[in-house]
């Protein structure tokens, strides 16, 4: 009887010690997490190297896992697209004919523009090179809007380079890793971009709000905004080149001017990065 009792006591002691150790390890892990959390809130740049290195390592796995889903999605899209192929072909032929006319007009205007520039001795902005890369993963969620692209420092990606889809600007490089980079989308709540409203010469700041339609801030009261006006980068600050297409003014509600982006940010497979160097007059933050 005594033996059984002592065995039971031993067992309960062991269980208690394991439980206590478990509790201690939990508290310890939570404490470490809170320390990291505080550090990454107070100074996110300290954590960036760790973040970009880990993303470099993990992104091939994400690409591998996402491949079957991409194939399924492409198959569904192509099967559903067959039905509308004929109608689409017809409309594309019409659009092509119209664009040919515009192409001739554009060539004529370009020649005229060049001769006028020469005549006025205007200092022409540097031409920018682009390089194209694939979107590895759309890691956007309810609170953060970012994507990961398959180019890093080794391919020439640098911080604050503008990122464009086929239709227009979608964001900027914020964390260039060795082989991959993180792009902050224009829709993210932390995104701020100096823009220009074509036609009116009004400048404003495009502010992300985590929805598909970012808003314009710091507009003049008598700006005379018209729905459908084109928005382009203003080039103010010297970080982004001017005149990159962004979107059009969608509507003005409750004093907020919403912008409809040219690009469908949720469905981007390839992006172009504007290979531009920062102005020499800009001082890099430490």
């Amino acid at each position: 009887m005594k033996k059984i009792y002592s065995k039971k006591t031993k067992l309960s002691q062991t269980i208690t010690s394991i439980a206590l150790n478990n509790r201690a390890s939990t508290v310890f892990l939570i404490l470490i997490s809170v320390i990291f959390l505080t550090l990454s809130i107070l100074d996110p740049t300290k954590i960036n190297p760790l973040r970009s290195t880990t993303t470099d390592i993990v992104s091939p796995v994400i690409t591998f896992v996402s491949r079957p889903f991409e194939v399924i999605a492409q198959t569904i899209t192509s099967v559903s697209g067959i039905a509308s192929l004929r109608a689409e072909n017809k409309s594309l032929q019409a659009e092509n004919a119209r664009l040919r006319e515009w192409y001739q007009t554009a060539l004529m205007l370009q020649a005229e523009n060049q001769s006028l520039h020469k005549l006025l001795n205007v200092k022409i902005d540097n031409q920018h090179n682009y390089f194209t890369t694939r979107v590895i993963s759309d890691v956007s969620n309810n609170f953060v809007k970012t994507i990961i692209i398959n180019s890093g420092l080794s391919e020439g990606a640098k911080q604050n380079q503008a990122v464009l889809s086929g239709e227009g600007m979608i964001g900027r490089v914020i964390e260039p890793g060795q082989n991959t980079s993180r792009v902050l989308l224009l829709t993210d709540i932390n995104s701020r971009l100096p823009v220009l409203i074509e036609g009116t010469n009004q400048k404003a700041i495009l502010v992300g709000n985590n929805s598909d339609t970012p808003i314009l801030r710091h507009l003049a009261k008598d700006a005379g905004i018209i729905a459908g006006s084109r928005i382009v980068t203003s080039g103010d600050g010297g970080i982004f080149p001017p005149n990159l297409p962004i979107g059009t003014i969608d509507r003005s509600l409750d004093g907020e001017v919403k912008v409809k982006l040219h690009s469908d940010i949720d469905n981007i497979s390839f992006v172009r990065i504007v290979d531009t160097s920062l102005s020499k007059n800009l001082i890099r933050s430490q």
Partner: protein
Amino acid sequence: MTSFFSSEKLDWSWRILLVQSLILVLFLLGFLNIPISFVEFKILFFFMALFYWSVYRPSLFSGIFLFFLGFLQDIIIGYPIGLHAVFYITFYFILKAQRTFIMAQTYFVQWLIFSLSVIFLLACEWIFFSLISLQFFGFEPLLWSFVFTICIYPFMVLLFIPIHKLLPTN
């Protein structure tokens, strides 16, 4: 050495590895770029696994494993690092402590508890991000996340149950 590689142990190891792989796949599903989405939100696949296995087989997880996954998620998504490690470890230990109570409930009540846990997790995220960015985030994507997560959970349970039966009782 021979006992470690005994056929029975190896068999159990394969089965446990199957569950761990499923958990990892659900974790990775959260990062996919699926171009047929019509609304931008994420379904909390990993949280479904965390809830189910914390209640029915907590030994599959450990604090360090969840710490590592939470850490990895924050790094990849771009959240402040450590946020999800705190959430996952806390949820795991609360669920583990209450598992006998939860297991004694009917399936409907368990589903309600899961729904409340999802609301609590999303609310914590919302409060945290609103505080650090000093502005309120919209509720619409959170609502979609909540609705889809709780609607898909019963189907995920249908997947978890046969896998659960494969596992050893101890």
